[in-house]
């Protein structure tokens, strides 16, 4: 009882300290809305068609500025967009990469192969920066894990719990960023070369709105001659965000599948060991364990 009272007192002291702090910490930065993703949750998997569409958006929109440092071959591996080998070979052949030196000591250009990294439009970061008003577009392959935002107490604890787990902050952020271009609020001056974005920290981003209009990217048509998903900015943003989650975590599906088996195995193992332990301890009359904080010889006994 006394412990409980002390705990309560200390907890309310803690809460009293924490609440005004939490309020003072909330600044004018809105949180990216939480989206539904096929790859969230314990049994989450990627949607192949979505990843293939996302890659198309990358190729047609983002690639002019951003590097995606992954080899072509990974686009055909299990757990990803799973393009066919022939598709990948054809795709790679559209790009030129520098190789060498050859026997004569000269560098030469050749068509890319599946094992090569997807080449970047720019020769290096400085060139990329000078072409983009001084800010180099960052490479995208890890973006979905390299961005996050604070969820604050107590949500950040809930995010780790089974059934509530939330690991998709990065994908949500990318989706929000791409759909977050707005007119600046009155009185907010946007410097030249900058663009107002609701979700970018500080709101001024050097990237011009990359996906400007619905219909900008043509999606593969279904049997009825129409794309099965809407060709809208909203859908493009969603698809590229999912695709970037895959590039950041290409083994996500294998990880979740393995994890499920490992945890089932451990649970069965623990169950067995529990009974072995009970059996062993029965020889000395079983365990009698006092919980911490309960005096086995307290006055109530």
């Amino acid at each position: 009882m006394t412990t409980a009272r002390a705990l309560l007192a200390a907890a309310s002291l803690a809460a009293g300290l924490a609440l005004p702090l939490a309020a003072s910490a909330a600044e004018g930065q809105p949180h990216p809305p939480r989206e539904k993703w096929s790859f969230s949750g314990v049994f989450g998997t990627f949607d192949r068609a979505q990843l293939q569409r996302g890659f198309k958006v990358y190729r047609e929109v983002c690639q002019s500025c951003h590097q995606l440092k992954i080899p072509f071959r990974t686009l055909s591996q299990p757990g990803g967009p799973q393009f066919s080998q022939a598709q990948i070979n054809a795709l790679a052949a559209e790009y030129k990469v520098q190789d060498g030196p050859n026997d004569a000591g000269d560098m030469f250009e050749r068509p890319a192969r599946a094992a090569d990294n997807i080449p970047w439009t720019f020769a290096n970061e400085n060139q990329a920066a000078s072409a983009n008003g001084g800010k180099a577009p960052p490479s995208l392959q890890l973006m979905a894990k390299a961005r996050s935002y604070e969820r604050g107490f107590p949500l950040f604890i809930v995010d780790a719990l089974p059934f509530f787990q939330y690991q998709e902050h990065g994908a949500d952020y990318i989706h929000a960023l791409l759909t977050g271009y707005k007119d600046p609020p009155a009185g907010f001056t946007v410097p030249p070369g900058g663009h107002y974005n609701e979700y970018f920290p500080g709101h001024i981003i050097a990237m011009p709105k990359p996906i400007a209009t619905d219909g900008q990217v043509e999606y593969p048509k279904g049997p009825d001659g129409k794309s099965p998903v809407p060709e809208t900015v909203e859908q493009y943003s969603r698809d590229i965000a999912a695709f970037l989650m895959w590039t950041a975590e290409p083994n996500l599906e294998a990880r979740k599948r393995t994890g499920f088996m490992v945890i089932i195995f451990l649970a069965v193992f623990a169950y067995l060991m529990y009974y072995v332990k009970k059996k062993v301890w029965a020889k000395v009359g079983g365990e009698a364990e006092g919980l911490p904080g309960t005096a086995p010889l307290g006055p109530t006994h």
Partner: protein
Amino acid sequence: MSDHASTYVPKSAFAKWFESRLPIAGLVHSSFVAFPVPRNLTYFWTFGAILIFMLGAQILTGIWLAMHYVPEATKAFDSVEHIMRDVNYGWLLRYLHANGASMFFIAVYIHMFRGLYYGSYKAPREVLWILGVIIFLLMMATAFMGYVLPWGQMSFWGATVITNLFSAIPIVGDVIVSLLWGGYSVGNPTLNRFFALHYLLPFMIAGVVVLHVWALHVTGQNNPTGVPIKSAKDAVPFTPYATIKDVFATICFLIFFAWFIFYVPNYLGHADNYIPANPAVTPAHIVPEWYFLPFYAILRAVPDKLGGVIAMGAAVVILAFLPWLDTSRVRSANYRPLYRQFFWVFVIVCVLLGWLGSKPPEGGYVIASRVCTIWYFVHFLVILPVLGLFETPRPLPSSILETVLRGKKGGAGMPAGAAAAPSTKG
């Protein structure tokens, strides 16, 4: 209790021959088989076994990672990505190792608070306790240097902030800092020496763990009553009783660990560490790994740089003096009504410090950090010494066995022969 001769009897001729030349089997036997264990231990006593398991796991996964990792500033980040993408089960190895460090600290913090609650640092276990504090210090150094290896933004800037602290030390400070850096700033030489040390320190930890277990062997384990083993009836042999319980607890801990590895592998890390290190761009908030946050909060609570460094160091080192700061002769908080309350307040202060360490050092956060920092030291320097003089402890049980029997609500009692069990061979 301290001088029970080894009851190990070598069976084969070879074992006899070997034992008379190097009695290591007898040593293992008396430490992990016949070793008398208080029979009333709770699951809080399984964390020692869990810690040994985690050290082994970190060393194994670490050596495997080192086979693919490149300790060079322009290649380190990419080599970790190579592990994640191209090495077979590389993602598993890395998530095991990165989350393993956190699990190691979760286990060590439970282990240490267990010691604080049950007075496990008191005579005759002072040396055992101090060896534990040394292990904790080595673990912190190891984990700090390990976090630098992937060479992301947080690796680089965390290393910069923490190594810079040493410059506050008068006279030798600058020399120490350039020794750590191997140059004039954190760079490739820093990464190289941190990798060498990160590889070395875990083996030093293993060495100190051997001493820790040796000291334990001499004094025996404490228990929830704090009353020592008085007769064979109070104890059970380590094997099978403690062994099976440790195995069960370790598997349960592994389930918890597996959840993090497979379902929230980046929860305990920081997103910025997926951005390659860039000396030209400072992250908005530089935050250490969660297990350092309480100490980081103490560091920033003191307005003076040198003062902050001293306070942070003292926060760890003060633990080594605990056996002499606590003046109460009663070990277990179960029999110390006042200390028990102060213990829980202290736990909450530590958790609060951890939370404050993750916040920017401004406004109310600074004030709260200062209040908690002061409380942290007052707990050790004022409350513990004074409490022992004024507190009236509850009456202690006359033996461990008595509490075990009472704990069963005067029930079944013990089956015949049970009392003799500890002396029968296990």
